[in-house]
Every structure is written in structure tokens, then in C-alpha cells.
């Protein structure tokens, strides 16, 4: 069908925000049956481009054609009417409504709610793509993976033929991601077009047919995803330079810096810790693997000092800390890179400088008799910003305007400023691009080299195997086993993550 116009054709899309050009003459086409990977570092313009396609922004220049016809997309309603559906990183569901009711939201057709029709559409989608959900279940009870499935079904029910997924696998388990990929392939076979935004190169390699790489608002390359394209090559196109994995050199393991001794927590309905014992030594990186929701958050909260255990002991550098509090753990030298950077780490509406000194504001160098020393705070922040290469317009800029990678750098700049004995890091590279993630890993390895300990909680096994000296696996609030890296294999860790203890 050489004459058939492509499903989607974006030409010369340009978008400026003040002096920043987020998109600079971007071309992107998507044919029916294609899965196009959209790759790029944070700030390369992927999200802006997709927001233009989905009607959240107006392009300053350029045109969009759908099925060869010029499309004027001014709102998400326009986009949906033209068959463009988007699954955002953050889901937009009504938790107190059932799955079926969530699908009804935004349905046109007058005052009558046509449950039957939507139900039939759900059945069709299930049989065609294997996307199964209980229509009567409450959206609030769904797992993250199921919520995402509901968002996809929602887009399909509304008649999407072009589906945009923004970092869809960031919060999924490997099994859930596998299911998603199957569904996406089925959609492509059915003549839909899929745009897949991701940082995870192996996923992009695995499921896309073509890859478009953005760099600094421009298309850096558009390549077919075949055997001639390597992960390495994609990474280099994305960063615009060669990337090397960080090198881990041998370090003598020192004394125990942080020790949990059969720590238990009870915390309402949430998964509590059950007799968790774990030690982090000087010069050691301990990884914690596990499917999310198996007690990792509680483990992090205990180490951060905000969750006081009701059984067991927490010891830092040989002395028992009881009761724990965020302040005492900080004073004992525990640094913290939280999973939720914007929620529990940084105060996005405050200036960057305020965030960099946040936990230490009472120190003599930043305040005296309760009076701040604005000059000293600014100078300190400036130094840290420069040292960590944080891209920000200054120390007074609102923190929320920074990109994800720079937010993480800001947290590192803050927590590493006080030479922590042990750094606790949860999902430290989630949502980060290749170079930002590499930077984070280098920092951890440098800490290890200096004789600090690092406790890395991650769902990214690749990351854990790269960094860890030992890997602890959590399941239902317990530590199943702690494996020295030389004895650990992905298969073994995977089994432990599923709660299967090896029958020796």
C-alpha cells in the first residue's frame, strides 16, 4: 500500500518556552502497525513533543497530519476524537469508582450511561490484546500494573489508534512489563501505531520497530531497530558521546556501620518488616532487591528514622539508636536519597539553595541564634551546584523547575555534602537517563571507595548487579537471603523475589 498516508505525520514541530527551545523542527512519522521508540535524555523534548500531539501545548510552528489530513489539536478531547490516546507516567483514575465506571468517565452520548456498550468493548479488548481486568473491581484496589492496564483500556475504549506511552515500565515488575509488551505487539499487528517513550534501552531494543532519538530538542537520529543497532550505539546517539559503564574496583570491607538486628515494624495495613537483620559495612554497597511493596519502603523509613521499629535494634557505628528519629539518624551520619524525590526529598516550591541546606539549616555555618546567613547559604549552594553539574539558572531558582536528573543530582549534592557514614538510596536511577544514572552510580562507587557504606534499594536488577557487593532479597517483609555478588544470579534472585527458597 505505497499510497496510503502514514497514521501520523508530525512535521517541523517547534516549541519555545521563553528563551528555551524545547522542540526545534522535529519530524516524526508513525505508520500503522509500527511501534516507534522515542528516546532521549531528560530535557531532550520528548514530553513536550507528546504534549503537543496530545493537545496540552500549542506548537509555535509545524504541522500535524493524521491519516494524511491536517489535524488541529487544541485539547486532549480533540486528540482523543482523532484517535490519539496517551498513557501518562502518573495515572488519572478515580480510586473510589469501579473499573467500568472509570471507563465511563468522559464518554459522550447524552445523559444515559451505557454500561452495556462499554462492557462489550472491554470484552473485545480483552480477547484481542489479552488486557484483562475485573470490571467490577475498585480502581483504588488495583496494583500499579493493573492501573496502567486500565489506563490503556481507557484509551482503547475511546477509540485510540495511536497510543502514546510515557515511560510505561518505570513502575512495573518484569512480569508485568512482559505482559504489556505482548499487548503492545498485538495492537501493532491490529494496525494501530504505538509511540513508546523510555529510558530503558533493552526494552526499546526488544519491542520497537524503529527508534527516534531526540537530543537538545532536535532529532539526533532515526534508525531502524534491527541487528545493526546496538544498545551501546543508541546510548551514544542519545548522549552525544561515548558511554562506559562505571568501573568497580576491589575495596577492603571494614567495620559494620549500620546494623539492623531482627527489626520488626507494625504499621496498620501496610506491609511491616518481620525480623529483618541487615548489616552495611564500610566500603560496601548492599543492594536490596524485591518486587515493590514487600517491605522496602518500611526498611527505608526505619533507616531514615521516620518509622520507629517496635521490635529489634538499630545500630549505627556500633551504638544503639533508640528511639530513632529523622534528626538522630542524620546526626549519626545516615544520608538519604529517597524513592520519591519530589514528595519526601525536596520541597519543589522552595528555591534550590533552601533545599540544599534543608536538613542542616541549624548548623552554625548557615544560621546563628536562629538568624539565617543568606550569603553563606547561597555560596554553599552555588558551590554544590557547580560541583555536581546541576543544570539550574541559579541557586534561587524554584526547585520544581529542574528536570528529574537534576533533582536527583541536587539530592546527592545535599546528602553527600556531609560525608555520610551510610547512604540510603531508594530507586536511585528511576526515571533517569543514561548519563544521569551513570553519574549517580559513580557517586555511589566513590563513596564505597572512601570507606562509606551504601544501601541501595532498587527494582532494577541490572543496577543492583552492577553496584552491589551483596544483594539482599525481600519478600513479604522478610529478608529471604543475602547473597554475595559472586554467588548471585538473576535467576536465583528472581526466585527469592517470588518467595521461593531454594531447596538445597
Amino acid at each position, binding site marked *: 500500500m505505497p499510497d496510503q498516508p502514514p497514521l501520523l505525520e508530525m512535521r517541523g514541530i517547534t516549541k519555545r518556552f521563553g528563551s528555551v527551545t524545547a522542540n526545534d523542527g522535529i519530524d516524526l512519522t508513525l505508520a500503522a502497525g509500527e511501534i516507534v521508540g522515542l528516546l532521549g535524555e531528560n530535557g531532550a523534548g520528548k514530553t513536550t513533543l507528546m504534549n503537543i500531539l496530545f493537545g496540552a501545548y500549542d506548537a509555535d510552528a509545524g*504541522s500535524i497530519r493524521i491519516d494524511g489530513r491536517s489535524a488541529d489539536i487544541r485539547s486532549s478531547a480533540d486528540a482523543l476524537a482523532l484517535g490519539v490516546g496517551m498513557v501518562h507516567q502518573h495515572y488519572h483514575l478515580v480510586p473510589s469508582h469501579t473499573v467500568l465506571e472509570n471507563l465511563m468517565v468522559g464518554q459522550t452520548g447524552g445523559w444515559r450511561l451505557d454500561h452495556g456498550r462499554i462492557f462489550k468493548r472491554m470484552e473485545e479488548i480483552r480477547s484481542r490484546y489479552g488486557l484483562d481486568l475485573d470490571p467490577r473491581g475498585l480502581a483504588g484496589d488495583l496494583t500499579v500494573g493493573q492501573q496502567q492496564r486500565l489506563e490503556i483500556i481507557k484509551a482503547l475504549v475511546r477509540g485510540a489508534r495511536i497510543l502514546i506511552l510515557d515511560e510505561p515500565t518505570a513502575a512495573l515488575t518484569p512480569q508485568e512489563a512482559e505482559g504489556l509488551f505482548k499487548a503492545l505487539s498485538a495492537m501493532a499487528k491490529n494496525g494501530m501505531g504505538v509511540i513508546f517513550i523510555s529510558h530503558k534501552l533493552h526494552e526499546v531494543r526488544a519491542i520497537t520497530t524503529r527508534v527516534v532519538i531526540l537530543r537538545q530538542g532536535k532529532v539526533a537520529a532515526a534508525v531502524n531497530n534491527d541487528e545493526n543497532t546496538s544498545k551501546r550505539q543508541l546510548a551514544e546517539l542519545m548522549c552525544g558521546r561515548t558511554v562506559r559503564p562505571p568501573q568497580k574496583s576491589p575495596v577492603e570491607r571494614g567495620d559494620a556501620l549500620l546494623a539492623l538486628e531482627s527489626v520488626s515494624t507494625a504499621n496498620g495495613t501496610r506491609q511491616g518488616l518481620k525480623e529483618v537483620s541487615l548489616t552495611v559495612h564500610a566500603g560496601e554497597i548492599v543492594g536490596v532487591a524485591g518486587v515493590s511493596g514487600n517491605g522496602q519502603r518500611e526498611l527505608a523509613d526505619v533507616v531514615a528514622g521516620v518509622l520507629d521499629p517496635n521490635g529489634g535494634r538499630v545500630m549505627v557505628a556500633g551504638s544503639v539508636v533508640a528511639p530513632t528519629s529523622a534528626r538522630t539518624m542524620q546526626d549519626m551520619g545516615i544520608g538519604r536519597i529517597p524513592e520519591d524525590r519530589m514528595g519526601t526529598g525536596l*520541597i519543589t516550591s522552595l528555591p534550590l539553595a*533552601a533545599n540544599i541546606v534543608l536538613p542542616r*539549616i541549624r548548623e552554625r555555618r548557615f544560621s546563628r541564634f536562629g538568624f*539565617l546567613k543568606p550569603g553563606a547559604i547561597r555560596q554553599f549552594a552555588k558551590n554544590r551546584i557547580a560541583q555536581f553539574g546541576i543544570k539550574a539558572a541559579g541557586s534561587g531558582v524554584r526547585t520544581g*523547575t529542574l528536570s528529574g536528573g537534576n533533582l536527583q543530582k541536587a539530592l546527592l549534592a545535599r546528602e553527600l555534602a556531609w560525608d555520610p557514614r551510610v547512604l540510603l538510596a531508594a530507586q536511585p536511577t528511576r526515571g533517569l537517563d543514561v548519563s544521569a544514572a551513570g553519574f549517580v552510580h559513580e557517586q555511589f562507587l566513590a563513596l564505597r571507595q572512601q570507606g562509606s557504606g551504601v544501601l541501595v534499594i532498587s527494582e532494577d536488577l541490572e543496577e543492583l548487579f552492577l553496584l552491589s557487593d551483596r544483594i539482599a532479597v525481600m519478600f513479604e517483609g522478610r529478608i529471604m537471603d543475602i547473597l554475595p555478588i559472586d554467588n548471585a544470579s538473576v535467576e536465583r534472585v528472581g526466585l527469592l523475589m517470588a518467595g521461593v527458597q531454594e531447596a538445597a
Partner: protein
Amino acid sequence: MIGLRIESREHTPLWLNVTLPLLAVAATLILCSGLILLAGANVFTAYEKLFLSALSTRFNLVETAVKATPLIFTGLAVAVAFKARFWNIGAEGQLLAGAMAAAFVGARESLPAWSLCPGMIVAGIAAGALWAMIPAVLKTRFKVDDVVTSLLLNFIIFYGMMALLDGPWKDPLSGYPDSPDIRMDAEFPILLHATRLHLGVLLAVIASVGTWLLMRRTTVGFAIQAVGENPVAARYAGFNVNGVILATAAVSGALAGLAGVGEVAGLHFQVMAGLSPGYGYTGIVIAMLARLNPLGVVPAAFFFAVIITGAEAMSRATGVPVFLADVIQGTALIAMLVALLFTRYRIRIRRFSHA
């Protein structure tokens, strides 16, 4: 064809922060001019009377400043509280608490004369702070909604005060529900001869600078902002969130209490039913108009005082009802809230590229 749409902004330009309150005021005046026309008056004459009469003579200027004084205090009280997301709607009640404490101390015959003024100030601060701590304790201990409790406490203290005025504090001679006058020695000194410009006016301006310093230059203000913007991150960073909320409530209540002290010690020398025509509530509007900036509270309060004092003159000259002043206050709040939208969003005008 031309269309409008709203887009989120990445940055808020500095000039917008300055001009938005002014634009909000301008929009308010334009909107309210319709009411003046309905009342059958000339818009320009009415506004001229409204604004210029309050500023025209020395006497009027002083009266406006005196009127602005309680509004500055309540505006500051609300601005501090809202920064911590402690929704103190109770400045009105805290003002009354401060006023009653001042009236009580100021009438004590047993106290030495020199101690009366400082004593009234301290008592008013303490009373206002304590009254504001009630909703803060309920919020931090039991997670009770602070909007509801702080608002309803206004009525409790108002009717408590009325019971006092109808009972133990009733004027035995006139039988009016007025408290006994404070002693002559307790009256705030007059700063400008033959006017009512009392010490409280100066205190209000000092309080505004002091509050600004507290919020911008101290660890307490830093903690208040951190807790207000993101209590979870503040807790993880080692701040005592509940302690900060309680401290904020105390500061806020103390400022509102000072409004009451000023009215008693500087103006009325007693407590009576009409002591506050809603200064606590107007303080909310003023704080919003000032965008919670303590220094901005002074001009915002002065603007409101001009309207309140000018309304009489306007009414006499043009026949427009004095209630226009209330409408302007309400409209100004709404206009400011709309204006705040534009710090986060902008309007884009677009021409459709094709028919």
C-alpha cells in the same frame, strides 16, 4: 478566527509578581463601576471621593492610618499562618481575645502605672496566641480540620465576650454592655499632637518588618515555609512538623491579639460589642492581596482602610451606598485569586491556521 487557551508557565517573571496585585485592584474598580452607575452616580466622582477624601487632609490621612492598624495586624496574622498551611480563619476571635486581655490588664488599679502599657501588650499577645493554639492542637493531635475549628471559635469567644459585657463587665452607670474604661495611664501615647495617631500604628509597621524578618531571615520562618510547602519532606529532613505548626499558630494568634490591644489601648479604651467590624476576616483578604508577604500587608491594609474611610464621604457626596466598600473588598479578593492563576499559567492567543 482567534482562540484563547491557557498554558502552564515554566517561570514566573518578576514584573508579574509586582504588577498582578495592581492589575487585580484595577480590575476590581472596573467591575465595581457598574454598581456605581446602577446607583445613578458618576463613576469618576464616586471614585475620586472614595480615594481622595481619605487622603486629602492630615486629619483624614491619620484616620486612615488608624483604621489600617488592626488590618495590618490581622493581615500579618493570616499571612504567617497561611505560609505554614495552617488555615487560621480565627484572627477575628484572636483579636477579641487580645482585646479582652488588654482591657482586663489596663483597668487593674493594683498595677503600677509604668507597667500598664507593656502589661497590656504582653497579655494581648498571650491571649491571642493561646486562643490560636486551640485549633492548632486539635489539628496536630486529632487531625481536626483547622478551617472549621478556627472559624467556629470566633463565635464562641464573641458570645463569651457578650456574656461578660452583659454580666460582670456591664457599665453600672449607663447599663450599656461596655467594659469599664482602662486607666488613663494605660492609654497608648499619641504620636502626633491633636490626632488619634497612637502607638499601635507604629507597632503595626514595626510588626510588619519584624514578621518579614522572621519569615525570611530566621530558621523559624524557614521551618514554617518548609512545613507549609511540603510537610512530608520537612519531616524526613528532621523538622518537628507539629511543633512548627504550633509555633506558627502562636505567632499568628499573637499578631491578631495585638490588633485587639491596639484597638483597646489606642482607640476605644474599652471593649464593646462593635469592637471589630470583621477585621479578622478582612485580614484574610489583605493577606491574599499581599500574596502572604508581610511587607505587602501594609499597603494592602492601607488600601482597604482608604476604601473603608472613604466610603462615607463618597456616600454623602454621590448617594452611592457605603456598602460599595464591602463589595470592593470582596471583588478584590476574587480578582486577586484570579490574578494568582497567571503566576502559574498564561493565556495564549492563537489564530487558527486554516478554516
